[in-house]
Structure formats: structure tokens, C-alpha cells
């Protein structure tokens, strides 16, 4: 039922063609560059509140989404820029949302932690830890009720695992056989509390066994390994309405939020530097160049394209007006 994958699980060729390799690299770089620009925007005072960056974890969102159909659903917690972008949202509208502007995905009312995009079936940005897991189960319930064959991927951090809602959700999805893929991004710290200080069972994937759910652990820095594991989980969910628990071993290179810029109190600088050697984008870029899928020039072209798109996104967000005052009272109740 469960197995542990190591990096480079795909043997021989990489299992992707030139087009797919370009797409994966583009999508990961886009998130990286977006987050770097968001950090700049925060420093400039253009973005307020809490800002949780996804830098270091890009392979999880990109590898996962690459195995989904457009009509599949995704839902996440508050470190969700990457999941939202990977699902296909326009970076311009995501950045405008972070800027609190009227052209943002949520008209500027949601902010960094509440990105939603109906056009891509991205169901949010939820900022109470664990609360979106039952919601994901409800989406799985609705898919089955309506006779559909979509799946929902529910991203959450290791910090959600001690919450009761994690266990309620795993139980309900298993009990009712729903097409929900629980994807735990284990970046080892819930804010400043390490997994060892939070969980009696630190091997999170093993909770799947408790609930009779297929569970796998995967190197969250290896986009190809993630694709392989998610491919199996998506097939199980789509064809057999079987939920899965995937634990992606990843790491955030930045602090918990911009208010914890270094993340230096609860982890050592050496640990952070060591983890940066696992940078998912560098690893993938080096691999695709090494096997000759992409050239250095290809990579430079991708980087330039991504930089241009994110610069456009920043300019768009900056130019977008603030939401008008009367919007304070719209979207509270839906009128018939």
C-alpha cells in the first residue's frame, strides 16, 4: 500500500519530452520569480498583512498540477500563490490581489491568503490551519454525487496534521471513497515548530495506513518524482474514487512569512544552506541540460520570458486602481 520513493525515482530517461520539460521549468521559474517580486513589493509597502512565500517548494505545485486536467480542482492553505499560479491563474491578477487592487482575483478583498479562481477551479486560499481539508472532502463528495470523474488535490502543510480536521477528513474521504488527494507539503516547520516538536508520529504518510488510504512519501524537490506519484494518485482517484495521502518532503527557503524573514530562531543557517542545495529548480534545470533535453540557451530564453511576464504582472498590479469604497458592502450576500 505504501512505499517510499527516493530522488531520481524515474530511471533511464526522464520520462518527459522537450515540451513538457520546458513547461515544468517555466512554471517553476514563474512561481519563483513571482514570489521574489512579491517580497520586493512587501518591502516597498505595496503588499501588506501576512505574506507567505513558496520559494523552495515550487516542484510540488508544478509537478502535481502537471498531472491534472483543467477541470480538476485544487484547494490550499495560505501559502498558496504557487498552487494558484500552477493551476493556471493569470500572474497579473494574482499580483493585483496581493496589492489589494480591484483587478485582483478576489477584487482586492482576499489578499495573499485568499486567492480564488473559478476559471481554473482553484478553490482558495484558506487561512485557518486544517479548515480546508473538510471542504476538499465536500468537493470530492460533490464530484461523486454529480457522477463526475474529476479529482481534487488538497494541499496543506505539516502544521495541519495535528489538527482534528485532518483526521476527520481522512476518515470521511476513506469511509465514503471520495476522489480526494491529500497532499501534505512537509516543509518541516509549522511556523517555528518542527515536526518533531508537534507530532508523535513524524512520518506523516503513515497516517494513511491508519485510515486505509494509499499513502506515499516523495521527494518534494524532484518534480519528476512528484509527477510519478501524483500520476498514480490521480488514476486511483479518477478511476476508483480512492483517496490518497501524499507526503512531499520539501523545505521553504524563506521564513514562515515576511515577518520572519530569515527563519533563524528555530533552524540553523547551516540547515537552510544545506537545503538550498536541493533547490528543485536548479536540480531540474541541471538534469534536463545534462540529458540534452534543453540547452543553456533554451533555459536563458525561458528565464527571460518568465522575467518579462512577472515584470508585466507587477506593472499591471501597480496600475490597477484600489477597489471603490462601495465594494466594502458588495459580495456579502448573493442576491437571488
Amino acid at each position, binding site marked *: 500500500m505504501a512505499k517510499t520513493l527516493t530522488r531520481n525515482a524515474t530511471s533511464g530517461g526522464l520520462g518527459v519530452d522537450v515540451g513538457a520539460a520546458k513547461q515544468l521549468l517555466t512554471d517553476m521559474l514563474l512561481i519563483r520569480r513571482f514570489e521574489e517580486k512579491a517580497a520586493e513589493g512587501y518591502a516597498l509597502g505595496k503588499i501588506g498583512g501576512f505574506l507567505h512565500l513558496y520559494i523552495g517548494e515550487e516542484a510540488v505545485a508544478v509537478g502535481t498540477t502537471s498531472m491534472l486536467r483543467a477541470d480538476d480542482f485544487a484547494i490550499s492553505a495560505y501559502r498558496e500563490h504557487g498552487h494558484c499560479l500552477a493551476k493556471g491563474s493569470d500572474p497579473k491578477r494574482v499580483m493585483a490581489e496581493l496589492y489589494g487592487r480591484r483587478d485582483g482575483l478576489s477584487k482586492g478583498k482576499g489578499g495573499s491568503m485568499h486567492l480564488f479562481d473559478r476559471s481554473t477551479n482553484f478553490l482558495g486560499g484558506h487561512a485557518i490551519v486544517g479548515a480546508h481539508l473538510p471542504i476538499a472532502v465536500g468537493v470530492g463528495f460533490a464530484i461523486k454525487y454529480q457522477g463526475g470523474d474529476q479529482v481534487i488535490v488538497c494541499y496543506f502543510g505539516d502544521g495541519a496534521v495535528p489538527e482534528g480536521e485532518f483526521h476527520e477528513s481522512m476518515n470521511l474521504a476513506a469511509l465514503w471513497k471520495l476522489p480526494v488527494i491529500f497532499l501534505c507539503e512537509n516543509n518541516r516547520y509549522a511556523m517555528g515548530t518542527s515536526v518533531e516538536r508537534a507530532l508523535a508520529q513524524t512520518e506523516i504518510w503513515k497516517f494513511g495506513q491508519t485510515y486505509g488510504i494509499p499513502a506515499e512519501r516523495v521527494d518534494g524537490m524532484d518534480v519528476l518524482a512528484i509527477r510519478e506519484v501524483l500520476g498514480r494518485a490521480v488514476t486511483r482517484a479518477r478511476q476508483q474514487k480512492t483517496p490518497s495521502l501524499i507526503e512531499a518532503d520539501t523545505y521553504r527557503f524563506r521564513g514562515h512569512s515576511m515577518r520572519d524573514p530569515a527563519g533563524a530562531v528555530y533552524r540553523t543557517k547551516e540547515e537552510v544552506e544545506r537545503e538550498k542545495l536541493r533547490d528543485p529548480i536548479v536540480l531540474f534545470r541541471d538534469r534536463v541540460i545534462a540529458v540534452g533535453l534543453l540547452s543553456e540557451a533554451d533555459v536563458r530564453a525561458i528565464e527571460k520570458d518568465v522575467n518579462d511576464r512577472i515584470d508585466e504582472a507587477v506593472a499591471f498590479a501597480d496600475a490597477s486602481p484600489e477597489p471603490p469604497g462601495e465594494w466594502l458592502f458588495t459580495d456579502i450576500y*448573493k442576491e437571488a
Partner: protein
Amino acid sequence: MAVMTYREALNLALREEMHRDPRVFVIGEEVGLYEGAYKVTQGLLKEFGPQRVVDTPIAESGFTGVGIGAAMVGLRPVVEMMTFNFALLALDQIVNSAAKMYYMSGGQFNVPIVIRGPGGPAAQLAAQHSQSMETYFYHVPGLKVVRPTTPMDAKGLLKSSIRDDNPVIFIESETLYNVKGDVPEDPEFVIPLGKAIVRREGTDVTVIAYMGMMYRAMEAAEELEKEGISVELVDPRTLRPMDTETIIGSVRKTHRVVVVEAGAGFAGMGSEIAASVTEQAFDDLDAPVERVTGANAPMPYARNLEKLKTPSKDKILAAVRRVCNANGS
């Protein structure tokens, strides 16, 4: 028109709406096989099957979240809380997810969900099972809160709640399930949310009450009639949005107000109504607004203490007499 119990009226509303709209389903603890802890969902499993009448384990936050997620992608769940006391376990889902989804998604995802079940003071169920829960919910923008007093209201308001595109908190009462009354059988009979009803016309004083307190106020009004005091009884029916127009209209006629509520008075419905009346009709008042509320204590078990906790008819009578004897006119 047929005579039926409050329980039967709710059951009929559920059945009619489930026939009308295949997206409507019922989910909660013991709603199917057991037919409801209070038998409100009796017969539904047999009629609609397990896909639409879904028994859950005891996991209030979990199954409420399931309802919210299902509502976001096109279904219309009716979530039963076996009693509303248990809804506190789902309070985060209700307040932070259901109520705010439409707003924080900038109008992209509404949550058409009804969360229903009994609440309010019951009979010797003590501190954790006998309390008025509406105050926890009507503070929250994005929620609608309904408290139906009669079988007719139970049916008409539940149907409107199920058809509403927003999260509706629908709190019934254990003590009213066996109350009988006239109920229209027309499946298109609905009562709009946000509309109060004048249950009894009067000229001297407006008494505002709902649920069990309305029945008690009705008894008091009949007794006061004999003393020559004409009481107008207003039932808000929906607490959010509150029909202040009907309330203020009545106050402008009677110039005196008593609000009766079963819950503890501090920051309760009476406070809110007193504030609205003061803001909108101060010059019409001939006496300060009186509140008759549950005592500011948890609900005790002992029968005599329980009686002291809940507003009595005598307290309502005394409050009405006080405002009518005030020297404002």
C-alpha cells in the same frame, strides 16, 4: 391548509425541496437509518436513498466542511446539527469558511447551505444541551439566522432557506417539535427571509419575541387584555437580516417596547433591538425599552433553578406593566 406538527412541517419542507431540486441533500448524525435524533428526517432515507440522506460519524467540523465544499461546487446541502450546541465544534467552518467565502473570493464562490437543528432552552438538559445559540451566529456578516416559531413558519422559512444562495443558520426547538398548527400544503408556499410578522395586533405596547418566548408572551398578552392593556406581538422570524422596519412601525404605533428572549441578556437580541429602536424611534418612545431575558447564568439542571433561569410569564407581565405605567405620555 392542513394541521400538522412543527416536526412534520419541517419534514414536509425537506421532502418537497428534495423533490424539487436534485442538488438538495441532507447530511448529519443519525439523519438516515435512525431517522433523526428528533425524527425530523423520518422517512427520507427510504424515499431518497443513502446518496441524498447521508449519515455521518460524529465529526461536526468535518461534515459541516463537507457541506461547505459541496455547496461551493454546485450542491445545496442541508446539514443537520443533532442539537445546535454541537455546532460550536463547527463554528470555525460556519464563521470563517461558510460566511466569508463569497466575500473573500470577490463574489466567485457563494455557499448555499442550510445548517439546521434544535437549539434554545429544553427540559432539564443542563448547561451544555440547553442554551440559545443564535447570538453566536447573528453577529457574523455573511450569515442569515432564522428562528421559526410556528409550524407554518417552520415549513415556509425552511423552504426559503434551502432556496437561498447564502449560508443560513436555521435553529428549531426541542420544545416546539410537537406543537400543532395550520400549514399550507402548496409546495410553492414559502415565507421570505428577513420578514417579521405581527402575530397579534395591539395598541399600547409592542412585545417582541420568538420561539418558546412568543408562546409565553401570547399567554401574557391575553392576561393583560383583561387588565385593559392591548399588546402587539411582533415575531422577527429572521434575526439576520432583522426586519427593523416592521419593529419600528409597531413602536411608532404603541410607543412602548418589551423584548423577550430566552438567552442570557448580555449582548443579546434584546440589546440589539433596544439599540435599533433608540436610534430610529427615540422620539416615539414613552418609556425605556425593557428587556426580559434569560438570567446571566449557565443553564442549571435542577427543575426549580431551571425555572429561575428562563424568562417566566410573570416577568413578562411585570415588564409590560412597568412600561405601561411609565410617565412618558
